[in-house]
């Protein structure tokens, strides 16, 4: 009983990382994702490295199941039960048009259509007082109707339930007993914050994915059990922490960003271990690039997420790591508009047909094709040689857009390929600037931490674009999401609407509210994870009186109004560039994050066994923008031991990723096996 295991199911591959607590051995395994039954892919991963599931004491699991079900509309047949007069809240939404000049703009359809939205008589006032009691007798015929319609899940939302959840709880209890086997969820079980549309939308999404997630998790447990697994299954939550399976089944919306979160956790763990205060975690995959800020080993967590994007999607009130995503990945297509203006993405060649160089019929030039044309990818070693890349196809694709722009010949193709990368770099840099400027930070004060299949290839150029001096590439950048999941803590986020001006009375009641929340959260973590030590972080959503926009302020000292005020002013100023000593401050909500650390590997054990100097470096010509074609040293990463130092131009190849070192860069291998690149200045 000595293995810790993390499993990340991605769009193309299922990744597994396992760590033996006794021998410190780390094994990596990869297998094609099996859409018919995801467990098959996982089991295949276990088999490939001859790992017995019976020896695992826990499995941390991240999945894109929830987001895929929401976006592809493959969830359950769900109904909404709501206050009389308010069934259209879900459809009217906030009435905004995020793309102001789109004359034909429309939002995605609501998850629950109008004929499946039912009203019951009840009303709670804004102070939590009962204006109209819940008509319990109406629930019996309603349940019969729901049954008749073949409803698999029911979402319950009542107006002002944030101030008094009694009616929602009553209705949920009644419907659970009337409709056994139907998934029942109510808004206040997920969040106690106000805003009717956001809460309705959240509970609707929860109902929509509830049955599927429950079935998936139960099946996973059974299949694992049949392989002799007796440990605990933990799900990767969007908040960056592990969730118990019970909680995941009750609140599947907390898994909405379960997939991409692992990398952020990993970045946080490395930042902490390497003593880096400010880190930008940057992940570049096949279709998108994502970035997040990690400060003092912690990533910032938002309490709202837009499934399907802000422009057309819907909100979910749930703690989600604050990630900015742009449509710029290896498969992103470079194209010309009718004025011959060049763009890269957001359209992607995906995995089928994929970039032109995959040879599966893709004809449009992609970022990966450009990299291949420039000599930055090894056609023989892509994915450890499992796939051979077609340079001729890549060049032909790039030439398609080179010619209209007047770039002729081989040199023109190179310049065009270089241009595609340059533009992709600017777009990715824009995402990083957005997330840092939004938080009032200067990216130059950060270290760029890059992973994902494409991250290490673009890291140095991106750092130059942002004037960031240092880049870190962790071991296993291509499996980094799974690595991060192995390092995750158990985490529980709870929040509550709490309004009042900042003064002695409010602070006194705030202390009590936090004490209650902590007791509850602590008990849950102890029950689900056997946690004996729980760490709490308290936050207040605060603003100046008169504002309607809150900031989330960490409250290390919840006893002293003056300390809270100065923490608020400081955070406000840091984020907004100014603060207002004259204005009163007030609370809108309280958030509590509770953590419990699980047994996890030390980072130094994570790199694959070093094969030492038995693989001699190769050389090949690589194109570096204005510097042209340079003879470049190509290292195998497994041959580079800690302490190794080198100079650009260089390529460092490994399974699933390639790191590009620019001519003026220096690099070294750190104690944890990480590559540290010191970017030269152009």
């Amino acid at each position, binding site marked *: 009983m000595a293995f810790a295991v993390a499993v990340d199911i991605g769009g193309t591959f299922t990744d597994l990382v396992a760590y033996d607590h006794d021998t410190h051995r780390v094994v990596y395994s990869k297998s094609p994702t099996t859409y018919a039954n995801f467990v098959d892919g996982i089991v295949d991963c276990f088999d490939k490295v001859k790992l017995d599931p019976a020896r695992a004491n826990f499995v941390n699991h991240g999945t894109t199941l929830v987001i895929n079900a929401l976006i592809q509309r493959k969830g359950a047949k769900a109904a909404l039960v709501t206050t009389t*007069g308010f069934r259209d809240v879900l459809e009217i939404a906030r*009435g905004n048009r995020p793309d102001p*000049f789109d004359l034909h703009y429309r939002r995605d359809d609501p998850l629950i259509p109008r004929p499946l939205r039912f009203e019951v008589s009840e009303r709670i006032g*804004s102070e939590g007082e009962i204006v109209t009691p819940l008509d319990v007798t109406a629930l019996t015929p309603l349940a019969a109707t729901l049954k008749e319609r073949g409803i698999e899940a029911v979402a319950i939302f009542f107006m*002002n339930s944030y101030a008094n959840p009694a009616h929602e709880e009553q209705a949920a209890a009644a419907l659970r007993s009337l409709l056994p086997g139907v998934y029942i969820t109510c808004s206040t079980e997920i969040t106690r914050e106000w805003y009717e549309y956001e809460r309705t939308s959240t509970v609707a999404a929860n109902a929509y994915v509830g049955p599927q997630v429950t079935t998936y998790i139960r099946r996973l447990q059974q299949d694992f059990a049949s392989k002799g697994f007796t440990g605990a299954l933990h799900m990767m939550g969007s908040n960056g922490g592990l969730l118990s399976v019970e909680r995941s089944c009750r609140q599947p919306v907390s898994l909405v960003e379960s997939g991409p979160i692992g990398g952020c956790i990993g970045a946080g763990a490395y930042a902490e271990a390497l003593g880096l205060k400010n880190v930008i975690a940057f992940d570049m995959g096949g279709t998108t690039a994502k970035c997040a800020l990690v400060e003092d080993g912690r990533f910032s967590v938002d309490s709202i997420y837009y499934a399907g994007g802000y422009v057309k999607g819907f909100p979910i009130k749930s703690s989600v790591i604050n990630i900015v995503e742009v449509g710029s990945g290896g498969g992103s297509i470079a194209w010309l508009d009718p004025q011959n*203006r060049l763009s890269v993405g957001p359209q992607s060649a995906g995995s089928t047909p994929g970039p032109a160089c995959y040879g599966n019929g893709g004809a449009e030039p992609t970022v990966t094709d450009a990299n291949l044309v420039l000599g930055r990818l090894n056609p023989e070693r892509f994915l450890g040689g499992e796939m051979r890349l077609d340079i001729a196809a890549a060049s032909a694709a790039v030439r398609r857009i080179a010619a209209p722009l007047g770039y002729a010949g081989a040199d023109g193709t190179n310049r065009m390929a270089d*241009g595609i990368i*340059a533009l992709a770099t600017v777009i990715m840099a*824009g995402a990083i600037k957005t997330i840092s400027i939004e938080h009032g930070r200067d990216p130059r004060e950060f270290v760029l931490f890059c992973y994902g299949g494409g991250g290490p290839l673009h890291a140095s150029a991106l750092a130059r674009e942002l004037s960031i001096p240092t880049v870190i590439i962790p071991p296993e950048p291509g499996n980094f999401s799974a690595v991060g999941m192995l390092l995750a803590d158990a985490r529980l986020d709870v929040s509550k609407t709490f309004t009042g001006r900042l003064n002695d009375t409010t602070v006194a009641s705030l202390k009590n509210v936090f004490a209650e929340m902590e007791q509850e959260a602590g008990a849950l973590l102890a029950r689900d994870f056997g946690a004996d030590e729980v760490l709490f972080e308290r936050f207040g959503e605060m603003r100046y009186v008169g504002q*309607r926009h809150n900031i989330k302020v960490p409250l290390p000292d919840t006893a002293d109004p003056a300390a809270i005020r100065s923490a608020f002013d400081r955070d406000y100023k840091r984020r907004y560039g100014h603060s207002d000593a004259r204005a009163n401050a007030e609370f809108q909500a309280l958030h509590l994050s509770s953590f419990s650390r699980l047994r996890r590997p030390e980072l130094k054990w994570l790199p694959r066994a070093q094969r030492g100097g038995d693989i001699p470096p190769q050389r090949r010509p690589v194109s570096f923008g204005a510097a042209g074609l340079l003879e470049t040293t190509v290292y195998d990463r497994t041959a580079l031991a800690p302490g190794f130092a080198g100079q650009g131009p260089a390529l460092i190849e490994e399974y699933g990723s390639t790191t590009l070192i620019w001519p003026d860069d220096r690099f070294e291998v750190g104690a944890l096996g990480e590559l540290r690149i010191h970017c030269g200045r152009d």
Partner: protein
Amino acid sequence: MQDAVRAKSDAAELDPITLEVIRHGLVSITNQIDANIKRTAFSPYIYEYNDFAVGLVGPDGQLIAQCTGGMPPFVADSVGMAVRDGLSIYGKERLHHGDVLLCNHAAVQGQHLNNTVMYTPIYAGKDRATLIGFFAINVHWIEIGGIQTNSTDIFMEGLQLRSIKLWSKGEPIEEVYRIIENNTRMPNELMGDIAAQLAGCLLGRDLTADVADKYGVATFSGAVKRILDQSEAAARAFIRAMPDGDYRYDTWLDNDRSGSDEPVPIKVKVAVKGDELTVDFSEIAAQAKGSINSGYYGGGQTIARVAFKYLMGAGEMANEGTFRPIKLILPLGKLISADPTAPMFMYPTPFPTVIDAVIKALERALPARVPGGHFGTHSGVRFYGRRTDGSFFDTHDSGHGGWGACATHDGAGPFRTMAHGDTRIIPLELQEALMPFRLDEFSLREDSAGAGKFRGGLGFRKRYRILRACLLGTNLDRTKFPPWGVQGGKEARPGRFMLTKRGATTEQNVEKESAYRLEPGDVVCVETGGGGGYGPPAERALEAIQRDLDAGYITPAAAAQDYGVQIGSDGRVRRQS
């Protein structure tokens, strides 16, 4: 002059990749500052209503790039107008690094005085010697004094600032701050917003200068020229694809908000010839008595450009080049080319209708793009008065209505008007916590959409039950001239505001109130208009009618009347033979 020559020669050899990198860089700067302002502003006008726009303007005041989410009436060059006024007053020689200027003047912007542009010159190159442009942000200042709604000239509407320096060479001018702070009813909020606006201007300036310095001033200037030329070429190509012709549409506003009940003519002509499009407003109403006027640039030119931008789509940048092929015929002294002394507090009131009328005029030229008319009126409801503790409260609750049906799908909504953008409904739970009412209903308004092959979007119904005495003000239009259909689609139902006094059994109309006294137990029912239909109703698919019927978007009576269908005892619709 020499600069111009150099820019020209550089533009010729500027490589297309550097050009794109600079273009993406500039657009992303305006969007970054947009995000920054939204998160730093004090007033909900900015972070909920998005009543602002961020723009980069060239050294001669030409609009180069803007944030993508800006408020439509600002996007047509409100920032460029202000910069050009500053240039005409100070000349380049009296502007310096670290200067920050303000302009809200009616003779320049021609909109209500709240709309205040702040801008700062951007210098780059060796010793920061070359003026490469201005970074500018137009923000709706929350309160700037004046009597506002009932004004009869602009001087009653608050403080006018005409190209005033707020900062000079990096130092704040405290006297100007003091003037502003002491001429507003809401100094805390306004000064907070100004701080956000200032921080955005300065950060935008520095980010832009970084781009220019990275590629060199000459390359940067050459790229800017090319960006404008390419936008112009895209706009001309779009116009060239329309059939030449003279197009027109006539409609009316209900009244001019001065107490008169006389409809206000909105007559619009559009001429397409080759790659040029002329918007002719010469038959539009004269300047109004009520405060619904706007100036030549802030009114007529803005409306023509906004309508064009809607037609062209969100993909193309809005800049000087995009608007070069648009010509305007607009005599002075009209509703949307009013004298700078005219009252303008409610200047956007005609905007949704006039913008939509320009779009409708092109129905024959762009049959696949022009949708049915949208509900087209601010549909505002205002509850105000004093709470039991004596404090003043005031809420402007907005009406969202249906948008027109398109060639490919039913109309959407409820959204706000074409003069709005990413403007969100104030959450009901928040309203109930702050205001002396409770809501009985908030739902889609059945049968409000115009029928058609594709039907319009629905308006909403919102019923306010008054809990404590307060005053009611309303602002509704298009009740006499409902949202139109296109290509044979039907018109939609207009909005309707009704009051049921406590205990009463009949309703009374409250569509034109400024201070109606409400008592506890009164119920105000606001119904907003729908959007017009697209194509003949007879062509609507039966399944679509069935779906609308099942969902309750239309009633059986309307289904029979609008679509001529019968409903069987099984609830299924069929065409009448």
